[in-house]
């Protein structure tokens, strides 16, 4: 029937006028009702229903009939039809708490949207229907805010307010994991554990609400509440949750991995890889977050989950590569460079995550580009190139960038970076006093050191001994300046390298970490050298290396 078609094909549009739907119904109601009558006959025959049917039948078609009664009938019929469908489509969903399956609920929403003329008489009629186990909710379509939002919105997936929160007072308000709260499985587990172990602070004896019955309880049925929540959930759907909700997904993935690793050490991991249940996506309509109405001055701000308020179009204009020569602009330049490098690094990491098949052509070219940008090697002067690199390293963000980049680079590149670092160690240490972030570099550099050849190692050690231009001290003196590090150096020379290692790792608190970095680097170099010496008992290197 025409009405049935209407109820199914109308897109979900909260703001579309109610009046239009009613207007459409009226002229067609005549023909549309006859098959609906049959449907109504099948389902049930409560008193009021018959009465409503009767009013229609008594009226001759073509005459002006009571629009209100007609609407009631129409609404009633559509509801019944939906209930029929609901009943047969969702037989198994007895208890919604068990099935976290939003797909079915989406269908329900599709069918319910026409119930906008909730007349109390009709509602009570429907409620009296005995034959249906499962009543479709009859949502009073609330006056939706006047924004002309005609499409679902995308945005980060936030856990929606729990419907149980809004409901009757007999339920207390702990963190209930309703089936509609779409949390990452890891997150859910953590919350459940918390609930089991550590929520005795909330006294179990005391009830959060008083014992008197709440007059405002149970105004909405569970289905109605679910429908409202679903309305909100639709707005949170996204096709690419890993991109839209990057932080949440990555954070819990990392956590899960860490826990899995820990589990592997102990017992076997019993956490299966996560299968995230995403809500069924009905329509992927793109939306414009800024709506321009013809003839108006300015824009209407459409608020979404992703951008609640977008008042103006703030687009930065102007060139970015202006040389002003001020010190602050220099720093800004460096920061800007670092950010560009970070974007490239993120791309590489993303590519790594998707396909662990390591050295593909595209990735290596990306890496090379990144390395060149880092070293600013377009300058022929080697010193300037190093200077650019050092500038990057002087910023905490830059250190993090290099530390994350090092595992990806091919060996020769990492070696050159390492050599640059050891040569300019005093400068780095001096500039790191505020940040104390040099230690982030130690782990990847340590790995690099363990793969050094003897020749490269010597180069590194020589770098420590030489005085770099622009600095008044040799790297090794800076490292050994501190009384304590000198003691460490002494330990090294006497062969007490083992205990020294423990001592540095124990974290002598009075040492600044940047100095620790220096001495740790020196230690790593020397110990690697020792290793190489012991392995290469048949020494083929020329004697000049030894003397060096």
């Amino acid at each position, binding site marked *: 029937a025409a009405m049935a078609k209407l109820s199914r094909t109308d897109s979900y549009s909260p703001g579309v006028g109610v009046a239009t739907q009613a207007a459409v119904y009226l002229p067609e109601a005549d023909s549309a009702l006859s098959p609906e009558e049959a449907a109504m006959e099948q389902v049930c025959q409560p008193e009021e229903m018959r009465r409503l049917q009767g009013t229609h039948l008594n009226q001759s078609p073509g005459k002006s009939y009571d629009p209100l009664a007609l609407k009631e009938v129409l609404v009633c019929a559509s509801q019944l039809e939906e209930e029929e469908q609901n009943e047969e489509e969702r037989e198994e969903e007895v208890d919604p708490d068990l099935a976290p399956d939003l797909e079915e609920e989406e269908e329900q929403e599709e069918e319910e949207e026409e119930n906008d003329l909730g007349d109390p008489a009709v509602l009570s009629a429907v409620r009296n229907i005995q034959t249906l186990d499962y009543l479709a909710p009859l949502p009073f379509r609330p006056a939706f805010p006047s924004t002309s939002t005609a499409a679902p919105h995308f945005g980060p997936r936030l856990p929606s307010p729990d419907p149980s929160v809004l409901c009757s007072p007999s339920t207390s308000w702990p963190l209930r994991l309703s089936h509609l709260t779409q949390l990452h499985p890891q997150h859910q587990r953590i919350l459940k554990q918390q609930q089991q172990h550590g929520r005795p602070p909330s006294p179990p004896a005391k009830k959060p609400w008083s014992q008197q019955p709440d007059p405002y309880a149970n105004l909405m049925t569970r289905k109605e509440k679910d429908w409202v929540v679903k309305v909100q959930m639709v707005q949170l759907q996204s096709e690419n949750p890993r991109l839209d909700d990057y932080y949440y997904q990555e*954070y819990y993935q990392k956590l899960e991995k860490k826990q899995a690793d820990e589990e592997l050490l102990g017992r076997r991991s019993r956490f299966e890889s996560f299968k995230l249940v995403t809500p069924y996506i009905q329509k992927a309509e793109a939306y414009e977050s800024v709506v321009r109405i013809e003839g108006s001055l300015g824009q209407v701000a459409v608020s979404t989950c992703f951008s609640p308020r977008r008042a103006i179009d703030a687009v930065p204009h102007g060139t970015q590569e202006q040389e002003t020569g001020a010190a602050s602009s220099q720093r800004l330049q460096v920061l800007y460079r670092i950010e560009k490098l970070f974007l490239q690094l993120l791309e590489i990491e993303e590519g790594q995550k998707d396909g662990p098949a390591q050295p593909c052509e595209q990735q290596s070219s990306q890496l090379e580009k990144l390395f060149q940008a880092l070293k600013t090697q377009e300058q022929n002067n080697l010193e300037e190139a190093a200077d650019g690199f050092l500038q990057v390293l002087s910023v905490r963000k830059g250190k993090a960038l290099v530390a994350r980049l090092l595992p990806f680079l091919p060996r020769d590149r990492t070696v050159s970076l390492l050599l640059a670092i050891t040569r300019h160690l005093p400068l780095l240490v001096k500039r790191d006093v505020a940040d104390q972030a040099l230690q982030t570099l130690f782990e990847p550099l340590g790995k690099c050191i363990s793969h050094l050849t003897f020749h490269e190692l010597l180069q590194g050690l020589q770098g420590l001994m030489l005085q770099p231009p622009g600095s008044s001290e040799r790297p090794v003196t800076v490292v050994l300046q501190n009384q304590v590090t000198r003691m460490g150096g002494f330990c090294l020379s006497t062969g007490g390298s083992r205990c020294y290692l423990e001592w540095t790792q124990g974290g002598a608190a009075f040492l600044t970490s940047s100095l620790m970095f220096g001495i740790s680097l020196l230690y790593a170099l020397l110990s690697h050298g020792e290793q190489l010496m012991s392995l290469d008992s048949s020494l083929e290197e020329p004697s000049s290396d030894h003397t060096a």
Partner: protein
Amino acid sequence: SLVGKDVVVELKNDLSICGTLHSVDQYLNIKLTDISVTDPEKYPHMLSVKNCFIRGSVVRYVQLPADEVDTQLLQDAARKEALQQKQ
């Protein structure tokens, strides 16, 4: 990702509320459970209140537990978002 963790919400009226984060929405309205007023309780004692809903616009700060936040990841997320917006 901080749902279920303890946070301290400082409001614009200088009230600081400590509680477990129950939920948050697009306007940064916050629901807390098991709340208590941190700081010396010179401000309205909400002794009987266990759960509350805080409108987003009255929040000045939200203090998060440091070990539950991965700042590097947060920076990456911000970079990705900025990239997306540019496109």
